[in-house]
């Protein structure tokens, strides 16, 4: 096989290497060392040039810089073309991306163009005895884990879920090579036009970033009753989530849906209120450090994954819980 080396497709956020990119450089360095091959990184966009040395400090041997102005913000056609061109020229054996909104779009397209083998949303990346990439990823909403291998197709590709590995250690004495990517993008090849980008202002804490999530299900009973969950969440500086049935009922907006078919959250504390714990919902909150279940049905499945539970009507529990937290946190 001619393919050699590990390539990380980096992301730049507000002029800096994205945290996921630093995590990927750590994983990539380990894989490259085990293979006895090079770790390279591809950085795209106008601010990429200034970050070459930083990527080297985090473990890259080579950093490809593509500074075309068409790459300044994410454009699917442009990024795919640039990354595919580089991969076809450099023939990496392994290509790693972040499981972010960019990686989720770019990785499958890149794979489609290169004809490799891709595993998405990986929790673990390692090499087997034949030095092939083994990707472990959640399936069925996290209720099972699958390992995947690409025996012959190259490159072997994976997107890594953010925050599953520690960031790479920075070592500014590391040496490497910064290589500008020759060749410009052909604007005619960009078929999809970005008309506008709208940043949505979120009231309070964003669900994905919240350290505490208070989540309600069908047992909540009405949109008004979700207000009780909001009060608790606001005292804890957290966000409100909901199950699919609760969103379907219109009690909470679709954007707050947690589960295999909604958002996946991993807060420190997940308070599940009036929800039974279908596999698809549990898949969205399993990464939480502590799960608390409040449900009047002691047989509810949610108690099987919870660390703490109260069997009672949530309407009698939440006001006292909110008041007590308020008291404890103001002390």
């Amino acid at each position, binding site marked *: 096989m001619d393919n050699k080396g590990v390539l990380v497709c980096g992301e730049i956020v507000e002029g800096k290497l994205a945290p996921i990119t630093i995590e990927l450089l750590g994983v990539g360095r380990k894989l490259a060392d085990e293979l006895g091959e090079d770790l390279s990184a591809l950085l795209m966009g106008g601010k990429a040039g200034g970050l070459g040395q930083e990527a080297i400090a985090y473990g890259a041997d080579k950093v490809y810089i593509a500074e075309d102005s068409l790459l300044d913000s994410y454009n699917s*056609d442009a990024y795919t073309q640039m990354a595919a061109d580089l991969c076809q020229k450099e023939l990496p054996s392994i290509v790693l991306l972040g499981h972010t909104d960019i990686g*989720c*779009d770019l990785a*499958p*397209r890149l794979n*489609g*163009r290169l*004809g490799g083998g*891709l*595993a*998405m*949303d990986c929790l673990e990346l390692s090499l087997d005895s034949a030095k092939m990439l083994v990707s472990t990823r*959640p*399936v*069925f*909403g996290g*209720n*099972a*884990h*699958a390992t*995947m*291998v*690409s025996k*012959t197709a190259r490159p072997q590709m994976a997107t890594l879920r953010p925050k599953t590995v520690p960031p790479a250690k920075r070592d500014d004495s590391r040496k490497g090579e910064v290589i500008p990517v020759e060749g410009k993008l052909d604007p005619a090849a960009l*078929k*999809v*036009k*970005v*008309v506008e*980008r*709208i*940043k949505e202002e979120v009231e309070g804490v964003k669900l994905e970033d919240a350290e505490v999530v208070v989540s309600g299900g069908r047992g909540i009973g009405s949109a008004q009753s979700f207000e009780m969950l909001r009060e608790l969440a606001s005292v804890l500086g957290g966000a409100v989530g909901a199950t*699919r049935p609760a969103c*379907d009922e219109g009690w909470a907006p*679709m*954007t707050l849906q947690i589960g295999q*078919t909604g958002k996946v959250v991993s807060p420190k*504390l997940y308070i599940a209120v009036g929800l039974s*714990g*279908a*596999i*698809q919902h549990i*898949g969205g909150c*399993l990464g939480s450090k502590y799960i608390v279940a409040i449900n009047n049905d002691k047989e509810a*499945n949610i*108690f*099987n*994954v919870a660390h*703490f*539970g*109260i069997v009672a009507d949530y309407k*009698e*529990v939440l*006001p*006292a*819980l909110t008041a*007590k*937290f308020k008291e*404890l*946190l103001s002390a």
Partner: protein
Amino acid sequence: MNIIVCVKQVLDPEIPPAKFKIDPATKKVIPPPGVPPVISVFDERAVEAACRLKDKQGGKITVISLGAAQAAEVVKHTIAMGTDEGFVLQDEAFEDLDSFGIAYVLGKAIEKIGAYDLVLCGRQSADWGNGQVGSILAEIMGIPVVTLACDIEAADKKLKVKRIVKDGYEVLEAPMPSLITASSELGLPRLPAGMRIMIAARTQVPVWKAADIGAQGPELDKAKAHTEVTGLSVPSRKTECEMISGDSPGQAAENLAAKLAKLL
């Protein structure tokens, strides 16, 4: 406007975890008895998006589903929602396909269907969730792709797509034909009603075999050899749920708050 929607039949994700069983030897999930499989939720959104476009523009919606013969049920479900016709792609040779293999077979079926302005898929399946079939399919067919759509409009031979990103959304303009993957933010799919249910019930869903769409031989073998599932396991989760009690639910709540405050 001619729209093709790709849908998948999956294990109902709303089952309780106790019913979720796997066979590690065959690396497959054992479907729980008595629980009928359902249309994958994102694919149902894709069908909804197609129906909304048809409501406005008119046109024809064709649905294809790669899977077992029972996948006819999900095709009928989409007909009850408002699609016009559908096909099941079923063949022994299509079993255990990887994402590339699935995209290849779907591509062959789309070739057979012929003219289209838009291909719609779900952003990922609700079971294996590989999240790449739509994009690979678009690359194979050589058409533009927009992923994670929450709204689609069509006008003047162009598609205006609202796409979900981390901190909001972007509005994109894509030519026709393009492929778009639908996200759950698209909103609730319509409920089948009245006459549509009757029409769906009477519909015979044709099954296309490998030979019918020319998806076979070395080309299929090559298409499906990109990734292999080498293991499937249920992660061990040893959580002991500590039940918090008190003289009243309110008292229990206070005890819980005190306990949690120490941990956070």
